């Protein structure tokens, strides 16, 4: 389209001043880094909160400043921060921003100004989120699922007045920011691909981020609507979600609300949300595995189709979170079936990763280790998901530590591994220097082994019936005594793993500052971002001429090729 093409060349004069270059920048690479750093900082707040919870669970009674109320508040903020403000923000806002334009060969996003706005609005949502610690009553303690009635009824849970309102406001602002970002990512992928970059030549990272952005645009609305209604229930005394409630023998003046309605709205958002974070991670891991195993990805088309299938089916499984909610039991049957069906494309992806590795020439550097870690935690987490997707097994396991173990491994740790792998992999390109491999490997091994030691025992605790969202199990005789020992053990490991993340921070800061200068293409990778004229890529990414793509991104180790990789920009085999 001539109209569109003229845009790209005309509107790109490089900004000069410090402010327009690094702070109010409209360059997708700078915005990506802003998103990444902000998300990591909030992520550390979330990590710190998990320490506090673990201290309480491991050593109940030792830490007087933790009481049942603020345990629940820490838990809620921890869950919300990790899922929304860390994972979603870093994968879409961070990786999406950095990778999409570079990998599909364009100079920037379709709407750079909107892109910048998206970041600043995200920052506002983060500030609102953290401000909840300073309002009367503190943040809400209703759990990250915010279920009414207890999330809005006075005294039913901590923070039921200002905490919950602030959180809803923050989420609404986040939805606005995510929508601006998502519109940009989707439009850019659809309309701005460079010559030769057909859809089926896009790297899987772009596919994952692209589909996840569509999911975000279609799933956030339900969260927004549920949030608005919850806010009305809280602020104006409407009764969308509040049935007749008796508190200490007194009937509140509410009637006829439908609390399960909120659960439907929440999980209509909540389940796709887990795919919003896992699909980009899957895409990134696919690219890392192929690059560092020096092998073409196995079953590219099947990978793309299964990403799309997971996304589509992901919209009709939400009520598997609600088997014991009191909804019509016939629903359970349908949602259990859909949940088992979604395991099929997930399994396809897993087999394809394993087959990609098969007889590969594995380079076990840090990004590769994290990618392998992802595959392992995704398999274990996914298998335990099959238990929970099954109504019969879910009834006793629901709301036990089995669930906590499951979602931490399959979405928490897996997504984090994808992020770590991606950060190490693209660090040399984004910063122009290398991180320390030795420190990176140490970081990996501590985190990998530690994550299993933390979350695997939780499956056992769950089988023993230990409920989640409990402040303390002290004095409850019916639990096996082994639970106490397990909890002490988990806490000690969790403290160590948390501390080990400082290795990562140190590695990146030290690398950016003192690290060895990176080559343009240290991993000998094929995708476009490694073929930029300078490292880090200049403003506008490509210099005078846009790259032209001649092949798919996975030409590794072709027989009788001169090198073991052929960049996407190379036209012939020689």
């Amino acid at each position, binding site marked *: *389209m001539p109209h569109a093409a003229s845009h790209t060349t005309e509107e790109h004069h490089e900004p000069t001043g410090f402010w327009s270059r690094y702070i109010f920048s409209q360059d997708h690479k700078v915005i990506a880094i802003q998103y990444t750093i902000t998300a990591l900082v909030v992520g550390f707040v979330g990590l710190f909160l998990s320490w506090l919870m673990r201290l309480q669970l491991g050593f109940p009674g030792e830490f007087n400043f933790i009481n049942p109320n603020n345990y629940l508040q820490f838990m809620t903020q921890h869950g919300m921060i990790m899922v929304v403000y860390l994972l979603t923000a870093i994968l879409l806002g961070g990786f999406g921003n950095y990778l999409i334009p570079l990998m599909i060969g364009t100079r920037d996003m379709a709407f750079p100004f909107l892109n910048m706005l998206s970041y600043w609005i995200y920052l506002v949502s983060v500030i609102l989120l953290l401000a909840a610690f300073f309002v009367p009553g503190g943040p809400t303690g209703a759990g990250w699922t915010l279920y009414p009635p207890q999330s809005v009824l006075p005294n039913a849970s901590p923070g039921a007045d200002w905490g919950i309102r602030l959180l809803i406001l923050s989420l609404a602002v986040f939805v606005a920011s995510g*929508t601006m970002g998502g*519109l940009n990512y989707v439009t850019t992928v659809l*309309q701005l691909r460079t010559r*030769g970059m057909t859809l089926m030549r896009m790297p899987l990272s772009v596919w994952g981020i692209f589909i996840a952005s569509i999911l975000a645009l279609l799933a956030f609305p339900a969260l*927004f609507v549920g949030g608005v209604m919850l806010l009305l229930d809280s602020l*104006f005394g409407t009764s969308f979600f509040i049935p007749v409630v008796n508190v200490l023998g007194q009937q509140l003046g509410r009637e*006829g609300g439908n609390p399960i309605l909120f659960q439907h709205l929440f999980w209509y958002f909540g389940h796709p949300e887990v795919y919003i974070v896992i699909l980009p991670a899957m895409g990134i891991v696919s690219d890392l595995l192929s690059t560092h195993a020096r092998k073409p990805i196995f079953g590219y088309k099947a990978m793309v189709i299964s990403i799309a299938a997971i996304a589509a089916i992901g919209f009709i499984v939400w009520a598997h979170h609600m088997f014991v909610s009191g909804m019509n039991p016939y629903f359970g049957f349908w949602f259990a079936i859909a949940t088992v069906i979604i395991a099929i494309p997930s399994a396809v992806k897993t087999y394809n990763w394993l087959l990609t590795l098969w007889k590969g020439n594995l380079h076990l550097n840090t990004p590769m280790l994290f990618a392998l870690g992802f595959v392992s935690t995704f398999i274990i987490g996914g298998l335990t998901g099959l238990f929970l997707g099954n109504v019969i097994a879910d009834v006793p396991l629901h709301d036990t530590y089995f669930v906590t173990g499951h979602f931490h491994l399959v979405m928490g740790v897996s997504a984090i591994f994808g992020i770590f792998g991606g950060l190490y992999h693209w660090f040399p390109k984004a910063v122009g220097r290398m991180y320390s491999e030795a420190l990176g490997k140490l970081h990996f091994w501590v985190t990998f082994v530690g994550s299993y030691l933390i979350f695997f025992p939780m499956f056992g605790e769950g089988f023993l019936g230990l409920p989640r969202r409990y402040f303390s199990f002290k004095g409850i005789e019916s639990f096996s005594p082994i639970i106490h020992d397990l909890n002490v053990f988990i806490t000690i490991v969790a403290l160590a793993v948390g501390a080990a993340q400082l290795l990562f921070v140190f590695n990146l800061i030290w690398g950016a500052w003192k690290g060895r200068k990176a080559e343009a293409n240290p991993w000998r990778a094929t995708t476009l971002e490694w073929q930029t004229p300078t490292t880090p890529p200049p403003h506008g990414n490509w210099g005078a001429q846009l790259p032209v793509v001649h092949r798919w991104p996975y030409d590794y180790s072709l027989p009788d090729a001169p090198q073991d990789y052929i960049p996407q920009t190379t036209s012939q085999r020689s």
Partner: protein
Amino acid sequence: MEKPSTLREIITDWASDQPTFRMSWGKAMMWIFLLSDAFIFGSFLAAYAGARLAATGPWPAAEKVFALHIGHTEVPLLLIAIMTFVLISSSGTMALAVTYGYQKNRTKTGLFLMLTVLLGLTFVGMQVFEWTKLIHEGFRPWENPMGAPQFGASFFMLTGFHGMHVTAGVIYLLIVAIKALRGVYDRLGDYQNVEIAGLYWHFVDLVWVFIFAFFYLL
């Protein structure tokens, strides 16, 4: 040789290295935004259905609540009918503005845009009137004299959220109209932005039809 199927051709076309949709970036983005916004309204309507089905109090009859007294006769839904008519007419004037935009006719485009703005304002004005009337009659988000409290809650929520869309649309169209009249699009040689604004406006009208059907008629 086998003739390739049409479906296959469409897919190949879409997946090629050209823009997937043959339109400007701005227009593509507006379509995607509207899809997302449609999900918001869809969720609102579904949630309203859920709330209405669960409500324990009797659901007030809309034709009674929204009746106007003219002389001594009670005309059900009169105001709503006029509002609907106004909004649908505004879609017509918007379509004309877009057509004149294609012909690069500066004055007529601007004129019909302004007319659309006026109709939009009329709609918002009538909505304000309707809200005031109901509030006088004791309707609140948390209670109302006619039955289930969820009725008032849903009413203020649905029409409020839609009304905010109309208001935003009025401001948006006003800006586009001023730009058109000032000749900004003439200088650009391109009236795209009128068309993009039109997409938004038609969407908001369409949503009203659903609210009208599901809230006022059912």
